[in-house]
Every structure is written in C-alpha cells, then in structure tokens.
C-alpha cells in the first residue's frame, strides 16, 4: 500500500503555533527596526524605474516565517540571510549583481558578512536589500559621466569604435550617437565623444507579492512558504504593531 505524504500536517502545525503569536508583544520586537529600514530603502529607491514603496508589513510577515520569536535565530538572523553556505548574502554585498544600486549609501560598508550574520538590525537590512535586489530588473546601459563636455579624437590606423571608446573613457553607444555617419572609420577622421561608461541600471520592478517572495527569496525550499506568508501577513495586518518614535 502506498503511503500518502501528510501533505497538510506540516503547515497546520506551523499555523497552530503562529496563531498564538498574535497579541504576544515579543513577536513585535523588530517592528521599529523594520519600519526604519524599509523607510531607508524606500527613500533611496523612490524614483527608480517606477518603484512602488515597500510595505514594511511584508518584512514583518517574512521574519515571522523565516525565524519567529520562539526560535533562537530571531535574535541573531531574523531574516535568515547569511546562514552557512548562503550565496545570497555574498551576491548582495559583492555589489556586482546590483546590490550597490539597492543598498542605501549610508549602509554601504556598514553591512558586512560579519555584521549581517550577528547583528539582527543588519540582518534585517541585508534581507530587505536582497529581497529588493531580487525584485529589480537590471540592464547594462551606457551612462554619461558628470563631465558633459564633448571632446574630439582623430582616428588612427587600425582603430575601431570599441578601441577608441576604451582609450578615451567613453562607450561605443556614445560614439555612435555623436557620430551617426561614422559607419566606416578612416585614419585621420575626427570623431566626437563624451566621457561615459557602461553601468548596471534598474530598468523596472517586479510587483511584490507573497508568491513572488516565496519564489525569489526562498526559492521553494518550503513548499508552503507562500501560504505561510499569506497567513502571517493577515495576522500582522490584524494585530497591533509596536509604537515607534519616528
């Protein structure tokens, strides 16, 4: 006889535990820290490619699902980013996957592998940062430098647009834009250029939802993650939040 897996048992047990959290103030312990951190991110990212301010209650629901006040991790890594072998924290802090555009300037350098793993306030910020990094769509685009001056350069034998761009601190896109007729290069020909570089930019945002968080933050390890997050979010919205001095 095939034994059917207890498909609902796990979730039901979790639900029983979390329902007791409502009204227990220790589950609100990180409310003010979360609100502060979410405000910092919202201020920093407002205006980028149609960014919609993040609702801090999503993050509160996430830490209820990720660690919860009854787990010792609640006071170490409430968002669970930076657990042993976690590539997520490294990719956020390395900056070269878009983390440098997401993390507010005040926190760059302050968030480190050591601090994220041991200080809850830093863990919360890294978790939010990673979540937002996963909610953003990035693209490499040619971006003009602050110096808007137009320079000129003479084409040397063997030159290509790529070579000129590299040598002059510009980009192929900029050269093409300023010299629309320079399809074929001739030695001695004079090209215009501006200082520019190819940079990663945020082009759009995913619309945040519990199922998207489950997919992009948790990666389906827990088959009930989205369902748990929905439940936690409804409890968080119903319950009282801590009063914070803003």
């Amino acid at each position: 006889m095939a034994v059917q897996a207890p498909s609902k048992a796990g979730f039901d047990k979790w639900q029983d535990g979390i329902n007791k959290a409502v009204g227990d103030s220790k589950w609100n312990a990180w409310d003010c820290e979360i609100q502060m951190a979410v405000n910092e991110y919202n201020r920093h990212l407002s205006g980028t490619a149609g960014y919609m301010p993040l609702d801090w209650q999503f993050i509160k629901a996430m830490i209820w699902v990720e660690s919860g006040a009854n787990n010792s991790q609640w006071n170490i890594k409430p968002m669970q980013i930076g657990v042993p072998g976690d590539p997520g924290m490294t990719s956020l802090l390395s900056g070269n996957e878009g983390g440098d555009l997401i993390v507010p300037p005040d926190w760059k350098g302050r968030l480190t592998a050591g601090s994220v793993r041991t200080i809850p306030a830093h863990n919360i910020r890294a978790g939010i940062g990673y979540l937002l990094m996963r909610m953003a769509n990035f693209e490499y685009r040619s971006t003009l430098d602050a110096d808007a001056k137009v320079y000129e350069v003479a084409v040397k034998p063997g030159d290509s647009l790529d070579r000129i761009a590299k040598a002059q601190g510009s980009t192929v896109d900029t050269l093409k834009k300023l010299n629309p007729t320079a399809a074929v290069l001739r030695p001695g020909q004079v090209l215009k250029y501006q200082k520019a570089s190819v940079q990663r930019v945020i082009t759009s945002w995913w619309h945040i939802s519990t199922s998207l968080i489950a997919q992009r933050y948790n990666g389906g390890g827990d088959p009930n993650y989205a369902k748990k997050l929905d439940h936690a979010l409804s409890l968080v919205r119903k319950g009282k939040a801590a009063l914070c001095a803003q």
Partner: protein
Amino acid sequence: MRTMKLIGFCLAACFPVSVLAASTAPALGERALREECSAFSQAGMRDCLAKKAESSREALRQAEEKVASALSKWAEDQKYINQAQLKFAASNKDFAQYRDAQCAFASSLGGGAIGNALDMRRLACVSELNQRRAEQLRDAVADLPLK
C-alpha cells in the same frame, strides 16, 4: 473506521515479530520530507531536515553493514563472494557520487534563493536517496542463503 482499526490491530498483532522487524517504513520522497518539516519556521525547518539527513545516513550505514555481514556468511563459493563484495564496494562509491551530484542539482533548483532554501532542497534529497538506497540494500540480501 471500526473495520480499519480491526485490520490495523490484526496487522500489528497477527504477523510474526520477525516480519515486522524486517519491514521498515517506506522511504519518503524529498517533497514529503519538506512538507513534514514545514511544521517549523524556516530556521527550524532547516534543522528538521538536517536531522532527517543525519538519520538517513545512519540508516544507510546500518544497511551497508547488514549487506557486508550477509555477504561474509553467504552459502556460496568464495570466488563469487569475493566478486559480490567488490561489486558492492564499487556500487557504494558510485552511489555516493551520484547522490552528491543529484542533490547538488536539486539544490540548484532553488535558483537565487537564500541559503536555507538551497540547503533544505539538498538535505531533503540526501535523506530520500539514502533511505531508498538503504531499502534497496536491505531487500538485496533479504533472501540470501546463509551458511
């Protein structure tokens, strides 16, 4: 319901103890394991799956010991015993290699998720494969005639 209970009672009481001892619960699939451990928050779930993986390693170790012991007592010419022992060692080695590769693949299906999710998938996969292998090994030598 009453009939079910009676059948259950009979299953437990009517079969000889030796049959019950030999039949271990069938190995759960990795998804069922994750469902079961979903009773906890993510931090607790990882611990739950780590324990499952640990006990699967123990189950596999015991099954391997059982096979080794059965082979040494096999009522067969030494030549064939030696051959089976060599094949068994090779199969253990290849299984471990397959398991690690397969579970690395399972873990990679977490994509860009944070560490817990990746590890949960890996641990659930390790548990399932170890338990299935243990089951296979137990079955393989169950009918071996012994000296």
